[in-house]
């Protein structure tokens, strides 16, 4: 009940004309970046972050999170109308969404996508509302070993549960952690990995890296591909919306299952991609006629969209409560918090109540406003794709440069952004994942500080990570997750051996 009262306080903080206006601007910008080929949630948030530098933290995070919601909604438009998944998590939406559009049911598919996005996000926001304060008060008992164990768990689960080649995830993560250490050592004041360069004294700002890795590299990749689009135009009428909503109770099991999957994979760093595919596959597996999936079945839109959005939203829970982002976008938002002088983690709930509850309230309001906005403006946003890419690409490049420069007012950062753009292009093409890199770059110095403090406290004894039940459980779980593929294979092998014996 305390959470409910605090949430009401959050709405009170939020309901000012200025904040509501920023929310609308954020949503429109978000849908815009979601629809544009070559951009998406993390890129949009990273590029538009400098717009918020001079705002107060609450207004800034409200605008940024609305850009995120908007981008999530916008991605469905291109997936369904053009068969172009703007983000990897929209791939599963195209399986049934595009066939529906081809059958003349584009409006129905879009309504289903937006509504299920809304439901997925709403479930995750409810979870955040009631769980985040509990987790953060629990996390107040954490010391450096517990924090390092949680960071280790995050890193290990990325390696163990990620779909990419393990060594490539390790490369991405260790590179990110290394680059996070460039510059002045916060403990001793000694310079590390600067090689005499005055520019590297400041270190490598992760936002500069993110803008290059996501923004510039996407432009290079998009330009490389064929940009001829052929899709369906659609407008949504109230009649279609009401008819889809009327049928919603029929799909409650799919919606609930996908929400649970999404929330689970959002909190653990499984991610929205895994959630959307798992949501889709389970809906298909439990369906009476699984062969109808892929041919324009509305459940095939409900399931992945609900799961992806529940996951994307739930990823903010560990970021707010523990200071550990569950996704790439959450990592960028976390960087934003640091820029505004806020320290994400358990103390945030104690020291900045207005900010936290304003943000949580904005998640509710942003989703409602976003749903209404996308349902009414689909044709306008779909027509954005008519703008020639030759006009959009240089504008994105300029926006990226402005973003990179504004962070530290350094020309060097614009060059660094370009360098990271090339690195991102090559990494994406050879399958080195960028999300672990971003996460490591954000968490690197915190993880190192936690490790060093733990080591100093224990006099260098590694047993500190098993010194009590809590830290021991988390560290053991981290190791289990790191070797999960091996353990999983071993279990499968044992099961194969046992099965014939039973038979």
């Amino acid at each position: 009940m305390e959470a409910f009262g605090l949430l009401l306080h959050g709405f009170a903080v939020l309901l000012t004309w200025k904040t509501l206006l920023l929310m609308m601007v954020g949503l429109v910008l978000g849908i815009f970046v979601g629809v544009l080929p070559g951009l998406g949630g993390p890129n949009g948030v990273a590029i538009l972050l400098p717009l918020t530098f001079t705002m107060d933290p609450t207004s800034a995070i409200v605008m940024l999170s609305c850009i995120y919601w908007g981008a999530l909604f916008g991605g469905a438009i291109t997936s369904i109308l053009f068969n172009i998944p703007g983000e990897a998590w929209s791939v599963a939406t195209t399986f049934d969404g595009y066939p529906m559009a081809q059958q003349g049911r584009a409006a129905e598919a879009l309504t289903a996508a937006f509504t299920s996005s809304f439901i997925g996000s709403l479930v995750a926001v409810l979870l955040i509302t009631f769980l985040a304060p509990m987790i953060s008060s629990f996390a107040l008992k954490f010391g450096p070993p517990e924090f390092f164990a949680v960071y280790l768990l995050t890193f290990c689960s990325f390696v163990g549960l990620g779909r990419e080649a393990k060594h490539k995830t390790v490369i991405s993560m260790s590179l990110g952690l290394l680059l996070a250490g460039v510059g002045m050592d916060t403990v001793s004041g000694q310079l590390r990995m600067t090689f005499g360069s005055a520019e590297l004294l400041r270190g490598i700002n992760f936002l500069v890296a993110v803008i290059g890795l996501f923004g510039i590299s996407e432009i290079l990749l998009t330009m490389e591909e064929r940009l001829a689009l052929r899709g369906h135009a659609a407008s949504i009428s109230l009649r279609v919306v009401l008819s889809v909503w009327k049928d919603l109770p029929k799909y409650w099991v799919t919606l609930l299952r996908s929400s649970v999957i999404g929330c689970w994979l959002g909190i653990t760093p499984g991610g929205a991609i895994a959630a959307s595919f798992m949501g889709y596959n389970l809906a298909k597996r439990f369906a009476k006629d699984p062969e109808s999936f892929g041919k324009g079945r509305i459940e095939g839109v409900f399931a992945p969209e609900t799961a992806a959005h529940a996951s994307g939203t739930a990823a903010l829970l560990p970021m707010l409560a523990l200071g550990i982002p569950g996704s790439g976008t959450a990592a960028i938002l976390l960087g934003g918090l640091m820029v505004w002088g806020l320290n994400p983690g358990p103390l945030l709930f104690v020291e900045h109540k207005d900010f936290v509850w304003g943000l949580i309230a904005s998640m509710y309001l942003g989703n409602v406003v976003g749903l209404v906005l996308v349902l009414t403006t689909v044709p306008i946003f779909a027509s954005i794709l008519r703008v020639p890419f030759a006009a959009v690409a240089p504008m994105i490049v300029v926006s990226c440069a402005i973003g990179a420069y504004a962070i530290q007012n350094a020309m060097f950062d614009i060059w660094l952004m370009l360098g990271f753009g090339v690195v991102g292009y090559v990494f994406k093409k050879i399958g080195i994942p960028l999300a672990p890199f971003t996460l490591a770059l954000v968490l690197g110095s915190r993880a190192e500080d936690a490790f060093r403090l733990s080591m100093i406290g224990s006099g260098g004894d590694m047993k500190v990570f098993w010194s009590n039940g809590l830290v021991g459980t988390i560290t053991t779980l981290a190791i289990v997750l790191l070797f999960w593929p091996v353990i999983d294979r071993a279990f499968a092998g044992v099961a194969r051996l046992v099965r014939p014996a039973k038979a």
Partner: protein
Amino acid sequence: MSNTELEIVVDDPTAPEENSPAVVRTGVVDVVVSLLLLALALVLGWDNWRTGASWDSTGPQPGYFPFYLSVILGAASLYGLGAAFVSRREAAETFVTRAQFRRVLAVFVPTFLFCLATQYLGLYVASFLLIAGFMRLVGKIALWKSLLTAFVFTAAMFVTFDIAFDVIMPKGPLEAAFGY
């Protein structure tokens, strides 16, 4: 009502040809990237060893944590190098075709020149030149449309960042002539 009989069609007259020859194979890039990462791991490992990668009276030295990360990066890169040599499938895949590479350069070179111009002419002049030039030369869009779009976008950025949000961008001689 859904009017799906209408189609949105955006054609790309400069789309890369499907049958363009490969510039480089993915396997080659994999090997080169693994070698570069290995070299980076060695350089960073050496630098951290030099900074101090052991223990002193105050605890782990500044290079301790990054040194072991360099070791992990080096080991993963070595594994990647071995995997790239073994994997026949990746070795045969095309990393980029000649037509695609030409298009990537068509973005990369102007972006590089834009960064250079920003350093000497300021961000807004460089932005104007990039947008107008890119639209006209790469997109083959009418000159007046290119110039107008570039001017409107650059002016909007100036008003948004320098004036409304007080985020000061690098300036050049033109802005100096107007007193900025």
